[in-house]
């Protein structure tokens, strides 16, 4: 038994190769690989803050400790320059690096294993033709025994199923394309599916909402709390542009995802939207009716409307009127104006994490591109005031009771 496990746990190294010349790869294959890398959001994890793209070094927080992404540029000594196609394919599909070490599932090989040969080949061609950047790996910060890599073999035995995507003949090719991308390369579930105590996605709760870097990834299945239910065209627009007038703006870890998606073919976005919306199922008539009301209000021009509070002695209402309404009721259109909070998933969603996060830290400006900017209130809102604000927002804009344990969420966010 132990011997069998060891045999499974032990993986051999794949022979290093001379770094291949960029000219040896087909241009159209590289271009296709670029689109795939964008779909896979590779740069988001493999780029450190203010670091070079694909050079790794970004800390990925997990419940178990901090893992640092690796350098996937073709640098021979610190990157994947000496990786053959075989080694690369094995890493993508089996979670084993060229030396034979098991990779932590923060690298979503449980999704990438679904990717086709052709796509892996294109990804390899793309990555091997990037500028090599010398950037040594940053040691992970994991407590014993989690830092013992062979243990990962045990994790894999329990939770990892190797194998390619198999088309579902019950659906059309668009849906299947969407499912292939969403479940595989785009690894949507890595954030949007809840995980068990050992960090594996819960199979029975696909897209039921998960966590990512202190943000909540909302449920995008039948449990979706989106005030206006998603339809395929809205989702497609959102994935392409990073915002939608009835849904808001992608922020947090979703921001780089949509930034990357800006460069992928429309057909792929159509497919992903079709698939994800089908997972969300048909909204109930009650939801649809409420949504119709919201849509009608949202489309009315509220330009310059006065943020007068109806409930003058409610602290939360007063804070909203004084601090929030001048932007959120300015009538400035999305994506740069403040969203009408009745449409905000942050207010009506299943977890308060993101709302608290945004109120406290705001959406700070970064770089010199058009992005929504919001000031944070961490140093001026007391916990009590924040609670009053959340209570008010939740009641007025979502018509829902306050979340359980908001106090703890506030504490965690601070």
């Amino acid at each position: 038994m132990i011997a069998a496990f060891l045999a499974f746990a032990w993986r051999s190294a794949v022979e290093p190769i001379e770094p291949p010349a960029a000219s040896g790869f087909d241009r159209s294959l590289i271009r296709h690989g670029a689109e795939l890398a964008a779909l896979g959001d590779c740069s988001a994890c493999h780029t450190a803050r203010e670091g070079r793209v694909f050079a790794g070094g970004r800390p990925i927080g997990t419940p178990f400790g901090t893992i640092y992404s690796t350098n996937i540029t073709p640098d021979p000594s610190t990157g994947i320059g000496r990786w053959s196609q075989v080694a690369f394919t094995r890493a993508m599909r089996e979670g084993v690096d060229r030396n034979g070490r098991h990779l932590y599932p923060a690298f979503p090989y449980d999704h990438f294993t679904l990717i086709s040969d052709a796509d892996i080949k294109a990804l390899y061609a793309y990555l091997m033709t990037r500028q090599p950047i010398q950037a040594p790996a940053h040691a992970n910060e994991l407590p014993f025994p989690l830092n013992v890599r062979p243990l990962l073999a045990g994790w894999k035995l329990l939770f990892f199923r190797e194998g390619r995507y198999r088309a579902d003949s019950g659906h059309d090719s668009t849906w299947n394309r969407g499912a292939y991308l969403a479940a595989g390369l785009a690894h949507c579930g890595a954030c949007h599916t809840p995980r068990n105590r050992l960090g594996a996605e819960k199979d029975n709760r696909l897209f039921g909402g998960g966590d990512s870097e202190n943000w909540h990834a909302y449920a995008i299945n039948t449990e979706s709390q989106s005030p206006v239910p998603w339809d395929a065209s809205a989702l497609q627009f959102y994935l392409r542009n990073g915002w939608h007038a009835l849904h808001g703006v992608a922020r947090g870890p979703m921001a780089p995802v949509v930034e990357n998606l800006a460069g992928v073919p429309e057909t792929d976005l159509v497919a992903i939207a079709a698939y994800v919306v089908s997972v969300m199922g048909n909204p109930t008539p009650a939801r649809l009716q409420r949504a119709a009301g919201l849509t009608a209000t949202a489309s009315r021009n509220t330009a310059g409307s006065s943020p007068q509070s109806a409930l003058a002695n409610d602290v939360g209402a007063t804070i909203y009127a004084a601090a929030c309404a001048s932007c959120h009721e300015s009538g400035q259109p999305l994506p740069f104006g403040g969203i009408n909070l009745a449409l905000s998933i942050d207010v009506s969603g299943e977890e308060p994490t993101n709302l608290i996060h945004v109120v406290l830290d705001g959406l700070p400006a970064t770089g010199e591109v058009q992005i929504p900017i919001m000031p944070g209130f961490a140093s001026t809102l007391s916990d009590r005031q924040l609670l009053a604000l959340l209570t008010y927002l939740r009641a007025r804009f979502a018509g829902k009771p306050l979340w359980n344990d908001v106090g703890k969420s506030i504490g965690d966010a601070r």
Partner: protein
Amino acid sequence: MTALLPNDTASAHISRRAVLQGAGALIVSFTISPAASSQDKGRAKAAGTAVKLAGSLTNTPYLDAWIRIDADGSVTAFTGKAELGQGIKTALLQITAEELEVPLDHLTLITADTALTANEGYTAGSHSMQDSGTALRNAAAQAREILIGVAASRMNVPAAQLKAASGVVIAPSGARLSYGELVSPTLLHVQAQPVSKLKDPASFRVMNRSQPRIDIPGKVTGGSVYVQDMRLPGMLHARVVRPPSYGAQLAAVDSAAVERMPGVMSIVRDGNFLAVVAEREYQAIKAMRSLAAGSKWQEQSTLPKQAELAATLSGLPSQEFRIFEKPESSPPDAAATALEATYTRPYVAHASIGPSCAVAQLRDETLTVWTHTQGVYPDRQAIAEMLSLPPDRVHCIHVQGSGCYGHNGADDAAGDAALIASKMPGRPIRVQWMREQEFAWEPFGPAMVAKARASLDSSGRIADWEYGVWSNTHSMRPGPAGALLAGQHMALALPPPAPKPLPQPEGGGDRNAIPLYALPHAKVVHHFIPSMPLRVSALRSLGGYMNVFSIESFMDELALAAETDPVAFRLKHLDDPRAREVVTVAADRFGWSGRQKGGSGRGCGFGFARYKNLAAYCAIAMQLAVEHETGRIRVERIAAAVDTGQAVNPDGIRNQIEGGILQSMSWTLYEAVSFDDTRILCVDWSTYPILRFGSVPNSLDVHIVERPGQPFLGCGEASQGPASAALANAVADATGKRLRDLPLTAARLKAAIGV
């Protein structure tokens, strides 16, 4: 400028008297004669002035219009120019202190004020040192000699043996008479002479020394510096509700609820001009929001497609001006290589950090307006015309605003405040524009298109050159009341003035369109486009930015074709020794010849111009890195050289050049006004991103080429053009890709680089 009313001079005199009397000192009278605005209307001489006097003395020849000395020895200098954040006050004081031989701290400076100072037109075009600096320098020198002359007769010592120092005239015997003792009421009420006895630069003790700016201590300690900081007794706060777009008509307004809001004093409606006045500032803001929500506007779709801007512009009817042709015969035989390129620039916003503001008060039938305008006299003209007041009933006083880079909302805010104050006599009215109003309504720097064609001869020299630039006007300033938004929006609906091209040699859209390079055959055409889809006017360096960007980019393209080093290629075509020196110094200080080879994501670029071909010379070298995967540009280091003629405040010059370079980086890399078919879409810093600290270069060195004794050359706009070209050239060096459409965004560069 249109002629001032005949009683204007007298009234200015009286006001000046009234203001100065308070000091209990000698009252001097002076004459402000009508002046031409320096930047936009040429340099007309005052009627009857036979000889050319120095700088603005030409138009305002009496010495006491510039310098006043009190019996207590204190000295006041006057300038019609305004402090815009460029440090002009300090430089003008240095000049006066130097030539007049008084200590700097005995000096007071009074700036642009229609009751007190000469009419020096606009503070624009980097003219302040040439106009006002030169006038003050000569006036101070002549005043000094007059004082020495008086002392000579009182002491009975030949003037040649006397010397002035620290506000005192000293005889060889050691006898001294202070300026206060020497001065008499009309002593300086004399016309300036054509020739002054200027000090030898070798003896300078204040000029050409870096002098800490006098305005900075107040600015960093919360002093009352800006018009935004004014708090007059009884002052009310007004906010304007602007139309949502150009040409929108106010169809209905529901003001009843707003009138009942706390603190609201008045709602002003005059045609499409709508404003609210309240006791407290935040009350005014809340009332403005409610009023806006209760207003219905009829909008029109008048704007072109942003994505097709260049084509739209060059497709509009235009007037052709052949501004340069050399020689007029046909170009030489078909040359070895010919190149052609088209460059474009979008609309660019001034985007001052502080939105425009003004305070106005109608009292005793005189309307006083405190404004951060660039031209108190033209602004007065516009306001008087708008309100049908005689100009002598309007008094405009310049007070600093946030950084001013041309014709922004300042005049319009002054017009707003004036219109509201005229309807609420007695109370001072403070109008503060909101951020979104500043962006939506300020006149932008015009979008432009430039086309260049040139050929090289077999020796790699430029054989012939053809250049055309398409542009709107670059000045829609007041004067006329129709230049003010309030004038346009009020029921009277004053029409905006007809746009005019600014004439060469300074030019507007064609500013710097004529290369300074020695070219055997060349033709330069300015295609002036009268119709203006977006509101435009003067933005720092006007067309100079775009033309230098285009010409200097094209020079690099030609250098590449000639297989010549870009700096060597420029020197090969430069005869002007001062130009050559600036280019050489910048290259040396940068380490151009030993620079890292371009390609693989890192590159160096060079740019040079003499601003307007008659102001400061500036050359800039830049090194930057491009991130292949994103197209993001990170400027690493910059070296610049500048020749401003005689330097007055070297650190002030450096500050201006540094600021110009960073501002140009921001324009060049990031900025474009966005709009749909009806509205301006960039209304805040989310939608109009500008340079942030993360993108500031690691080092920026400015070297001043000293030119002792040479005339002052304005430098406030000298670095914009060269900086933009140095950037584009460095990008091309780093990536092998030539970007010709501004701004050089990461997205555009990434698209050019490809996968």
